[in-house]
Structure formats: C-alpha cells, structure tokens
C-alpha cells in the first residue's frame, strides 16, 4: 500500500514536471535556468525546480526525443545549452495537457478540487 502511494506520488510529480517543461518550451527555446524561472513565474512560485529535480528530468526527456538540447552562443560571454521541443515532445504535449485536464476535472468532481 505504502509502495503504491509513493509510486503514484512520484509519477504525478514527474508527470506534472514534464508537462510544465514541455509547456514553457512550447513558447520557444530556453536554457535550464530560464526553464526553472519561467515555470516558477508562470505558476506564481507553486512549482519550483532545483538542479536535482530539473536536469535529470531534462536529460531523460532529451533521451526520449521530447526535447533537444544544443550548445549555443556565446550569450553574455558564455555558451549556453538551450532546449527546444523535439517532434516527439510536440506530439506528447497535446495528450499530456488533455490527460492532466481530465485528472483535474475528475478530482474536481470527486473532491471539489479546482484548477489553481
């Protein structure tokens, strides 16, 4: 029982983080720090990433072809690794949004949970 609770929690966390990253990258390429700040700003601080939660997820998403990271620049004297949506990420974003919409609607019906 406890194991499944942890599993659901992890999956929900990872799923929501993936949706957040894909959503901000849908507006254009960003480097890691910009991704984290953009998500934090757009969710008014409700969702925030640190290095440990952001970069392993980005690398995993890159491996799946959802995002593509390329070194660009120098920008401000530094080369930066920018991430943009890959074809698989663009395809994934639509059903992911729909799935999360359904989840929120279901939770709303169940317990009166509404969108943030």
């Amino acid at each position, binding site marked *: 029982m406890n194991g499944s609770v942890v599993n659901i929690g992890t999956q929900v966390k990872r799923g929501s983080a993936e949706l957040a990253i894909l959503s901000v990258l849908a507006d254009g390429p960003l480097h890691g*720090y910009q991704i984290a700040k953009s998500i934090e700003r757009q969710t008014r601080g409700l969702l925030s990433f640190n*290095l*440990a939660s952001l*970069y392993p997820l980005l*690398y995993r998403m890159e*491996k799946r072809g959802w995002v593509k990271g390329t*070194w660009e620049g120098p920008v401000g004297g530094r080369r930066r690794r920018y991430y943009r949506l890959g074809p698989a990420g663009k395809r994934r974003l639509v059903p992911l949004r729909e799935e999360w919409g359904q989840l929120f609607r279901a939770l709303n019906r169940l317990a009166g949970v509404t969108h943030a």
Partner: protein
Amino acid sequence: MPDWREIARRRLTPLALEAKRQEEIIAELADHLEDLYSDLVRQGKSEVEAVQSALSIAADWDELRREIQLVANEEVIMNYSLGPAGKRRFKTLWLPGACTIALSGILLRLLQIPSAPSPHVFWPQHDMPFIIYWQWFVCLPLVGGIGAYWSRHAGGKLLERALAASFPALALMCFPGLILPFMLVFQWIVHHNPPLVPSALFLLGWVVLPEAALLLGALPFFRGDAGESRPVVASH
C-alpha cells in the same frame, strides 16, 4: 565571483560518464548556479550570502549525482542492447523486412492448402521439378511495395528500402544458395551429371523472379526523401 565549474565538479564527481559528457553536465549546472547567484546579488544579497543561498537552494547534490547516474545508466543499457544506429535500422530495415517475409510466407502457405489453385509444375518427373505459384508472383509486388513504403516512412535510405522489400527473396536465396553448391558438387562426384539446368531454374523461380517482382512493387517508393510519405508532413 566563485568558480562555479569547480564547485559543481567538486560536488558532483566522480560520475561514471564519458569525460566529455561529464564536462558538459558540469558546465550546464555551473551556468545555472551562476545565474542564480547573479539574481540573488541583484536582489540585494551580499556575495557570501548569495553563494550560500545558491548552493543550498540549488541542489541536493547526492540526489543530483544519483539521478544523473541513473539516467546515464539507462542510456548505457539502451545503447548496449540496441545502439542508436541499431534502433534506427530496426525500424527502417528489420521491422519492414520481417513484415515482407511474414506476408510472403503467409501467402505461399495459403496457396499450399488443398483447396487453393494448383501451382504450375514443370518437369514433374524430374528430381528437381520446377514449381511456380503464379498467384504468389502476382502478390509479390504488393508485398515489396509495403516493405519499401514502411521503410521510407520510418526514414529508411534507398538501400534499406530495397533490402526491406527484398527480404523474402533474400531469405529464399540463403537456403538454396547454401545448399545448392554442395548438392551440385555431390551430384558431380557421384553421377558426373550435376543438375545444372534445374538448379538454375530453381534459383530463377524462387529467387530471381520473386526478387524482380518485389522490387517492381517497391519501385514507386524509391523516390522521395525518407519520411515523405507521412501524411502529416505532406499536408503542410
């Protein structure tokens, strides 16, 4: 300004990664820390406070190391089982090729059931009669076309499309291609009369003509770039 690369390297390494990949990760994390530090300084923190805050806000380094290693290990396992080129070739060659073999095999099997039309048999009294399933030949261009179309759709190059379409003929060639030379030598030693003509006809009927029929069907799909046949791409 602290040396963020050195800080990231010290806290993150050793990682069981290629040196180049490890340096890329360190550089990327250092960039993140530097941005965070600069933001904190802009917000009015002293440099010392900003460094401490950046390091504490930024990461659980043990978790970060563990997670990065985990992702890298998954990659190693995937690449070991089927490397990137292997994965591509699986989609562009082996999968469509297996499909054409399966289709041609099923068709041939259907034509061998008792109620199916009889094949045309040349020299039925001979040791190696020449059997032709005309209906099978008629279907082979369609099978070859499916193989080549699938391969092109998956991003296959011209050679991969041709090979994917040709799998049934190639498989048939492998069997007699290996057996026939031994058989001919054996016949020559024992009877001094190897069945050259029947062997040639066998190859013609089961390898050369099927190959031609398969390639005929594949021909329309040799044109165009890989992935061109995708309706989504074509419609835009």
